[in-house]
């Protein structure tokens, strides 16, 4: 079997399925490559995605939720929406699926390094930001990055992803975590309100600071003007986009914004680059 065929997935086994949210519509799948010889064929960095195959149903792209700094861990967090994700949600530990990638460009570390970073995320979009946070917090990497501020929102406390990690992060002193929900519940001791408003409230000085925005289109749309108000230059605002993708390698023609393909040239673009492209996403 040729190893340079970009359409051939590797086989992986589901090791664990975790229901992430109160409403069981979001699950995290821990995968292990099935073949020993495939180990080492899946090197990724935070911000990349992969096409997961549920055989018989097809393929769909998902951001990689784990961090390469966690050896042996490969995680995808999947929200149940269409044909493929519904089928994936029915899968159990031990079952086999396909994984093709990593695809897309990683978050541009050379750009973030040595600067402070604000990560703004909402809902189910928190997968690749979580990868980056874990990556940065790893002791081998931490000193390469400046101060880290995270604003993460969900509809309700129960819909926040990775709750145990969030709890650990709250107690760290090298990360400022601001959680917010649209609707609070008893016992909720963080913020209530929309992500853009929280950003306005807690954002650090734009000086020597990068911002990464990753979340639902509406959140992105309302957050960008806030960042502009706060004085973040578009070159240092990174936006991670979602589009329907198939091939993941810029050939099938559906995920383009202007002459750029989200799968190949993205999924993360600087706001400066994005402003050169048509507003079609």
């Amino acid at each position: 079997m040729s190893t340079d065929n970009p359409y051939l997935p590797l086989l992986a086994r589901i090791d664990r399925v975790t229901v992430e949210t109160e409403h069981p519509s979001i699950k995290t799948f821990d995968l292990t490559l099935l073949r020993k010889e495939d180990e080492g064929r899946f090197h990724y960095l935070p911000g990349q995605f992969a096409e997961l195959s549920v055989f018989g149903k097809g393929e769909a792209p998902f951001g990689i939720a784990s961090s390469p700094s966690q050896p042996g861990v490969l995680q995808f967090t999947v929200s149940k929406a269409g044909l493929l994700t519904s089928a994936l949600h029915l899968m159990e530990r031990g079952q086999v699926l396909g994984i093709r990638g990593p695809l897309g460009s990683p978050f541009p570390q050379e750009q973030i390094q040595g600067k402070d970073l604000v990560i703004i995320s909402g809902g189910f979009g928190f997968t690749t930001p979580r990868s980056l946070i874990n990556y940065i917090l790893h002791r081998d990497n931490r000193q390469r990055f400046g101060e880290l501020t995270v604003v993460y929102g969900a509809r309700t406390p129960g819909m926040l992803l990775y709750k145990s990690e969030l709890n650990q992060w709250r107690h760290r002193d090298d990360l400022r975590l601001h959680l917010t929900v649209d609707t609070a519940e008893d016992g909720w001791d963080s913020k209530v309100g929309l992500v853009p408003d929280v950003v306005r409230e807690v954002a650090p000085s734009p000086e020597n600071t990068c911002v990464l925005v990753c979340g639902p289109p509406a959140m992105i749309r309302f957050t960008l003007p806030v960042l502009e108000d706060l004085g973040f230059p578009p070159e240092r605002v990174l936006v991670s986009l979602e589009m329907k993708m198939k091939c993941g390698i810029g050939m099938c023609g559906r995920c383009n914004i202007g002459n750029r393909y989200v799968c190949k040239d993205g999924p993360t673009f600087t706001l400066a680059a994005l402003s050169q492209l048509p507003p079609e996403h």
Partner: protein
Amino acid sequence: MTPLRVPKQQVAGLLTALLDQYQVIAPVEEEGLVTFGRLGSPEEAVLDYRNARVSPKGLLFPQAEVLLTYNLASERAELQEAPQQQERQVVFGIRPCDARSFVLLDRVFEGNAWHDGYYLSRRRNTTVVALACPRPGLACFCASVGGGPFSTEGSDLLLTDLGQEYLLEVVTDKGAALTEAWSEYGEAGEDSLRRKAELQQGAEAALAGRVEIDGIDRRLKGMWDDVFWERLHEKCLGCGVCTYLCPTCHCFDIVDEGSDRQGQRLRLWDSCMFPLFTRQASGHNPRPTGKERWRQRLMHKFCYSVDSYGEVGCVGCGRCVVNCPVNLDLRHVLNEICSDRTHQGT
């Protein structure tokens, strides 16, 4: 290499010789419809045709092709890569516009970091013998989009019908290799070359100025919010005729066929004119109506393609013009984009 002359009565012999060594694809006729089909015998080839209804892109990029098969039912779960084409084929008698479309497809499937082996293996194993186009059709506009009725781009050999004989010109080494065994054909004389030049001149004159698209990419860049898009798509049915018959449209989908244990993964043509093309599982669709889809189709071919490859992604074969069920004529759309009265602002 000096051009050769192939008397018409010897074409059958030439095809027979090719059939001995290659799979030969040529225009064939079925119920009055010319298509590109695998030749069984020389007499099936229809060389006095204008152009085939369906473009030859399917010869390199089939409408449905197996990428891999999967079998999770056996003890050892397995994926099997679909075999890539090894058989050598000669595509005989396609028009220069279609031959040129292969060059445009090459750029897509050669990619940068990734290469599409399914397409490229077919392409590598294909030799293109094009047939010059002395009488372009009414809807043709190859010369307006960077090609020409006698263009050799994408061809390995070029034939020109001179009446009693064909003039055979070698374009590439691959083409030369094909002619090595053809010792029986004499060198073409001055007369033949002069006749070809006349035909070429006539064809080019007929095509001159059919569509004017100078600077279309720049114009389109300024037209994103133009009211032009509001009404353009109004009569469009949203079918896939234009994109499926187009020799350069390359969009595809990947789907599985089979159970969760055994089956195959297919690559299928897809079309930017279909609403589902970009609709996400969440229901969000960045191109929700015909307006956005038409804009995408035109931008892709006449703006993004220029940005990416320096050329428009259209070879002017006219298939979308002739076959559009509502006669929404691309030539007129292009002319309108490039006429100054289009830009009415936003």
